[in-house]
């Protein structure tokens, strides 16, 4: 038999019988003893849990009330803060009429292409892998790329040093060299070297998907692109961005054939350039339908080197150096 001390302070202990608390009667009850750190002070787990659930409900209720009040009052909504909006305006940001940038562009190595001079205007690309033999996925990826990028040849690189390849390419009037290196079976780096003394850019290649793997394509691989597609270059804002954008644009021939409705996009977002290949259809003047064909991948700029590929003696215009803390700021982008 247990003796009950009637004189003891019963009030401190929580009630023996759990009263079934209806969710409607919250205003009448005393609020749960809440710690300054936000936790409840009740030692009984079941009751503590109940109290906590109640607390949460009341909080969300107040929030909802505030929200409704805000909506009713008709205040202008705050814009959601995105990293793009927080981005600081660089000195390198190019506005529309930046004279310096324009001058830069006119004296570019890629100028030949953009002013449609005879030697530069029709791009001829050579696509290779790294030294040795590419693995299966990279092989497929390379062959797909060779089909999507117009006027490309996939050349098997068998221990040929790049400089020798470049020499030969100059004789055969190629304009661009693309080299894809791989790591652990997946393509990991892309070098684009514009040939007649153009800049070489190294990109880090990620999330490569073949056209077979795209769901919208229904498991079929992409056919060879015999026509000239349209190009979209989005968000290349800074000086470096313009340089990269021009190099990428110079891979494709002039005068796109609009009738065939192919579009290749390089979309830059937070220094990641997304490559997409779509076929589009205007349903009316406000709606477009897109179907994704062709491979997709993301590239991120690592280095820009002046002149054709020369890893040792080349002059690097820009390098991404994580050691020197180029990555520390969340809202700082280079392209």
């Amino acid at each position, binding site marked *: 038999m247990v003796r009950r001390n009637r004189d003891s302070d019963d009030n401190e202990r929580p009630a023996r019988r759990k009263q079934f608390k209806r969710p409607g009667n919250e205003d009448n009850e005393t609020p749960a003893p809440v710690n300054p750190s936000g936790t409840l002070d009740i030692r009984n787990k079941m009751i503590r849990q109940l109290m906590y659930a109640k607390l949460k409900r009341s909080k969300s209720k107040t929030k909802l009330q505030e929200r409704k009040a805000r909506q009713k009052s008709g205040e202008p909504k705050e814009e959601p803060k995105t*990293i793009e909006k927080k981005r600081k305006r660089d000195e390198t940001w190019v506005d529309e009429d930046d004279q310096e940038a324009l001058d830069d562009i006119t004296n570019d190595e890629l100028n030949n292409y953009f002013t449609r001079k005879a030697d530069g205007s029709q791009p001829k690309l050579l696509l290779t892998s790294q030294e040795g033999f590419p693995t299966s996925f990279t092989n497929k990826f390379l062959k797909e790329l060779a089909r999507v990028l117009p006027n490309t040849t996939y050349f098997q690189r068998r221990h040929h040093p790049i400089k020798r390849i470049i020499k030969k390419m100059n004789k055969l009037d190629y304009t661009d060299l693309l080299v894809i290196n791989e790591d652990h079976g997946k393509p990991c780096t892309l070098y684009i070297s514009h040939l007649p003394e153009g800049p070489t850019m190294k990109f*880090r290649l990620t999330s490569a998907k073949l056209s077979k793997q795209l769901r919208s394509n229904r498991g079929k691989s992409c056919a060879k692109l015999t026509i000239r597609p349209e190009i979209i270059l989005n968000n290349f804002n800074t000086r470096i961005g313009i340089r990269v954008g021009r190099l990428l644009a110079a891979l494709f021939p002039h005068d796109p054939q609009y*009738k065939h409705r192919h579009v290749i996009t390089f*979309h830059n977002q937070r220094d990641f350039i997304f490559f997409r290949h779509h076929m*589009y259809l*205007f349903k009316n003047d406000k709606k*477009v*339908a897109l179907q994704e064909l062709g491979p997709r991948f993301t590239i991120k700029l690592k280095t820009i080197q002046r002149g054709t590929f020369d890893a040792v003696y080349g002059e690097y215009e820009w390098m991404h150096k994580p050691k020197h803390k180029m990555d520390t700021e969340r809202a700082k982008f280079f392209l």
Partner: protein
Amino acid sequence: MTSNEKIPIPKMNRSRWGHPLVFIASIIGLAGSSAVYYAQIRARQKARNTFLEQSFYKEALELTQGYKPITEKLVEPIQPLQVDTTSKFNILSPLGAQKMQHDDVIWSVLNGQFCSYKQQKSKTQIFCANEYNLTGLCDRRSCPLANSQYATVREEKGILYLYMKVVERSHYPKKQWEKVKLHESYIRALKQINEHLIYWPRFVRHKCKQRLTKLTQYIIRTRRLMLKKTAKQELVPIKKKAERRETRHEEKAFVAANIDRAIENELLDRLKKGTYGDTYTFPVNAISLDEEDDESESEDEKEEEEEGENEQESEEEVEYVEDFDESDAEDMEDMGDDDIDEELIKALPLSKKRPLEIEYESVEIPVRGAERAGIIYCYATRNSPDDEWHVDKLEFKASNQPERYLFYDRELRRKSK
């Protein structure tokens, strides 16, 4: 050194590294087949064979034979006298005697108590970390500290040196080791060792020559590796944290980019600006359904039917789509929200998935492999009515979908057809 008699060449045991050329050949054997490589292998084998016949090679063989007296004329050096003195630390006794005793004392201390160079990582073998050690083992004979007369061969930046330590210099720690630069040629270096260590104990001499051999092979290997591409390639470590961060940033950037919408906006902008010219016209009230309109209907990837709405420049015609595919319906945006649609389609039977049956004029375009594949439909365009059809995309779609699953067994299917 070279005797007048013809000494038969003893069969050389194939050491692990063998002849350097063999090493090359084995590497090449792994490098994949191509005519060039085989030719190189053959050339090298030939070179190796000619090398093996050279006289200096035979000399080298002789020189490296261990424990053999250098010349028959020289007399074996006498072991130094072991003077037995009562007091171990007798300074006045002859140096020779002192030497042995002193060494013994040192060895007893190092072996028994503590030596900082002693490495016993495995149960069977004790190693010596001293840089001047000849064999690398912790041994009475190999310990450079416990032997006042000692010699080693060491390599510094690709050049081999013979280091010698004698009793006479034991009081000058700074000048203790005499450093002799060995010849670049292996055989001459062997001869040098023989000259310098002429009256030295056989063990030291032999081990020095062995060490010389090993080091020259090592140097050859490093040189070859340096010339190879793999040495020029810089191995860069993958930083896990940085990688993780990058992938995460990429995912977030992808979400923020909303690429499809961006592309659509861009295309619409271009349309507005007029870059497409007169290719697209979107009539506001396209209710009239003339026969001409039917014929000049536009082609559609998604097999969408909005008659008269997408009139493209006369000549694109589509073949077929009798049924809607569910998958296509997913791709497309909201169809049929416009009033125009509803008006047009009023006349036609409507069901949930809108199977619109429209009759087209069928054009037969020869497609390779059509007989085998059965009925093929395709998307084709042509620049003008006189031009040839250019096939853009093939659709392997049967006209009546359900039949596809009627006969799972191929044989039955073939019979039914």
